[in-house]
């Protein structure tokens, strides 16, 4: 699990000068913009197609800790204990099904949501950038949500993604860590997808 979730050695890597980076990054941005369009237009079933069957999709909680402490003190660790959520594909499907019932009152009426995705960086590619089948990507999101009248939440944060290329399906996300820049969550709910 830690090998999948640990981006600490990848964060400082710069692959931008290597052959194939620009083409792959452009492809990735198109993928993310499609994902945002699907989510913001409530095409959840189509969005589910972008997620691999062995998905791990989680949002750690964070604590105020001294500078010298390591990551596991500040962030909850995937695969252990409690996070804001730690979903597999089944659970994500359940969340979509819940919205589709039409009686999920925290999302009924539906929220109005826009995802802004930026700072897309490929930090790992296997076997290489030009023939990549597996990649690790970091990016930023700004998610604006408004519902009913003035119930408005803005989530800002980072995503650490791992995607793989599948024959027939194209890129699929199999790991996503959603890092939000808050300790005590300043939102009553997390009913959206990041």
């Amino acid at each position, binding site marked *: 699990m830690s090998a999948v979730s640990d981006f600490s050695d990848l964060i400082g890597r710069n692959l931008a000068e290597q052959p194939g980076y620009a083409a792959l990054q452009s492809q990735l941005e198109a993928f993310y913009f499609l994902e945002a369009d699907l989510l913001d237009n409530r095409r959840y079933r189509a969005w589910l197609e972008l997620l691999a069957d062995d998905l791990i999709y989680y*949002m750690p*909680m964070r*604590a*105020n*800790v*001294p500078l010298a*402490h390591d990551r596991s*003190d500040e962030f*909850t660790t995937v695969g252990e*204990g*409690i*996070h*804001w*959520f*730690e*979903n597999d594909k*089944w*659970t994500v499907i*359940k*969340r979509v*099904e*819940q919205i589709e*019932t039409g*009686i*999920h*009152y*925290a*999302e009924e009426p539906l929220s109005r949501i826009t995802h802004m995705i930026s700072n897309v960086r490929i930090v790992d590619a296997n076997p290489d950038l030009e023939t990549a089948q597996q990649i690790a990507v970091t990016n930023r999101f700004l998610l604006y949500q408004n519902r*009913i009248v003035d*119930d408005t939440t803005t989530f800002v944060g980072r995503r650490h993604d791992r995607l793989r290329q599948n024959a027939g399906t194209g890129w699929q996300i199999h790991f996503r860590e959603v890092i939000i820049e808050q*300790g*005590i*969550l*300043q*939102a*009553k*709910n*997390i*009913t959206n997808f990041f």
Partner: protein
Amino acid sequence: MEHSNLKTLVDADNGMISREIFTSPAIYKRELESLFTRTWLFVGHESLIPNPGDFYLSRMGEESVILCRDRTGEVHVFLNSCTHRGMKVCRYDKGNAKVFTCPYHAWSFALDGSLQGIPHFDDLYDGVLDPDDWSLLEVDRMAVYKGTIWASWDKDAPNFETYLGDAKLHLDMTLDCRDGRSGGSEVIGVHRWKFPANWKFAAENFLGDSYHNHSHGSVDAIGIGPSARSGVKGRRDDEMRAAQHIWISFPEGHGVHSAIEHPDAEFIDSYLDQPEIGAYFRNCYEERRRRLGDEAQLIPFTGTIFPNTSYHGRQPRGLCAWHPHSSGETEGWRFFLVDTDAPTAVKDFLRHYYMRYSGPAGMTEQDDMENWLYASAASKGTIAKRLKLNYQQSMGAAKLNDPLPGLVATQMSEHMARGYYTRWRDYLEGRDWNQLLGVGDPRFSDGEPVTKAGRA
């Protein structure tokens, strides 16, 4: 605020409560001064501070407190404010420390709260300031109960178990091992989030407001429980389907919803998604029956220990503290519990279930937040405030001490809320501890009065 005004705000005998108690800043201020300074408040769990030097920041009312374990292993709860100029002496949520050193002027406090370092003491303070007089302020009362840590700012507060009264039996079932051994739980994580609702809406919900089941229709329809992958609908296994549900109000203001199984009841198949998890819980069930005998017929569902500590007893299992921020804002803390010695696979199964059920991203509790937000917001209006809220459900239906101690209903009821707000009013009126414990409350000698009440 005059007593007569409080009387009209909470009219328990007629089952009507003013919306002002959920919206008024003046009433909120009174709660901070008269209620949160006196009641026992849940501040944490021993498993969060297992070793000497461990600390964990918590809250009591609006204020930050430090929960810590000193060098000798003793647990303390301190107000997180330097006695010199008030700065928070600890701004880390958790960790291990030798001292708490204030960032402002570097006064430092030992883990037992004593002031151990003052910069330039000899030049600036010698002969004037006695460090023994300027320790961190420690709570007046502190109790460790089956791993949970509670505190009060009132030196005259009754001891914690007296305060719990007969609700103890029900809280115990949340804190005790699944197989009936006493205590033995640990916290595997804490959700902390802020939501725009009055704190009492959350506390009241857990008193046993089973009437709000409707809110959770979406998760019941799709199934998210421990047997959902096996096709079972509902948000939990139906462990209580053959049991007699009971709703109990206690003199101290607590309220619970529990259930009593038939003496010949057998384990109801649950945790179907993983056979070994199901087998584990079957074994716990049978072991608990063997260990506790007839007492094992009682099983927990939800409850609120007055004023702001709630629990879920089984599916999911945990404690909540509803910390007030203002009349319209609450910080929810949800502590998730498992048996410390449960197998790793069981803990892993439970944490996934807890996360999909609970907290701000929990599929069930998202809908609770929505209710509490709009119930708070819609009570603010000038016209809305003319209307009282209705708490008349099952008036007079509860019986005294039958079959368990307390005022017990065997049908869905709001008498726990009527009792809760009656005690709440007593705190705001500054009553003595006898009255705050419900001594002399006629509901617990004569039963609940039944009146034919009109619309307020």
